[in-house]
């Protein structure tokens, strides 16, 4: 395998609990990226923000026979040192405050996302 250690990938997730089938894959890619020792950040904005409200992701399950939920996927990200960040302005869109967020999520402003996009090696947009 080519060695990608030291590279950086930014994953932008705009899909949330209203479209469950669009929620898992970006997180799965993020974990794969982190496992390859690529510095990985998932940035949640627009509808993507609502999955970060405490207690919500536990209810999103793609396979009824599995015990894996969207919350499991978010936790897998954190366990693999994927950074999770949310758009400050999107919180207001969903009437959320920082206290509503699950643990481990950072809050960034729009200028930070521009900084990240310019400084990361690659941006994946969903």
């Amino acid at each position, binding site marked *: *395998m*080519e*060695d990608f250690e030291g590279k950086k990938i930014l994953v932008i997730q705009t899909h949330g609990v209203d479209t469950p089938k669009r929620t898992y894959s970006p997180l*799965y890619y993020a*974990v*794969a990226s982190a*496992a*390859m*020792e690529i510095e990985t950040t998932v940035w949640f904005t627009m509808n993507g923000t609502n999955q970060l409200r405490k207690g919500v992701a536990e209810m999103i399950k793609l396979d009824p026979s*599995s015990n*894996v939920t969207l919350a499991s996927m978010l936790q*897998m990200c954190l366990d*693999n040192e994927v950074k999770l960040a949310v758009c400050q302005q999107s919180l207001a869109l969903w009437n959320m405050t920082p206290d509503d967020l699950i643990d481990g999520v950072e809050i960034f402003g729009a200028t930070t996302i521009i900084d990240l996009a310019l400084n990361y090696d690659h941006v994946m947009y969903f």
Partner: protein
Amino acid sequence: MGYSKVNECVIATDLYYSVADNTWARVNEDGTVYIGMTDIAQSLAGPILHAKAKPVGKVRKKGRPIATVESGKWVGPIKTPLSGEIVETNKALEEDVQLLNKSPYNKGWVVKLQPSDLENELKEMVTGDEAVEQYKEKIERDGIQACAHIEGTEDYE
């Protein structure tokens, strides 16, 4: 090679284990070691679809990834339990990646390592009855279900 079974999970008693990371090491006569994932690890992952090892020549500290493995429901790193340089990767996995499931302790080794601090780091791993005992505790503590084995898994009797 001797085997023990805990909750249908096979533990090869002549290998050294990092119980936390579910990896094993076999020390060869020439001082190199094979590194692989345990039967419990393959069962938790399910049928493996892809595995990518780090390249030969890569020097790794203990705890760093030597490969990335993915199944339909899981993706993650295999972390080396020993520091050293990767001197060989298992080409057989390119032909049949599910050797990781079917033969985790033999044909499904992941990399061969030239260890840099073998004597000290082996002391931090467990083997034999101690390994079996620690896996019993882990299986109970983590609520791990009985290990599942896909068709073609080697016979451990």
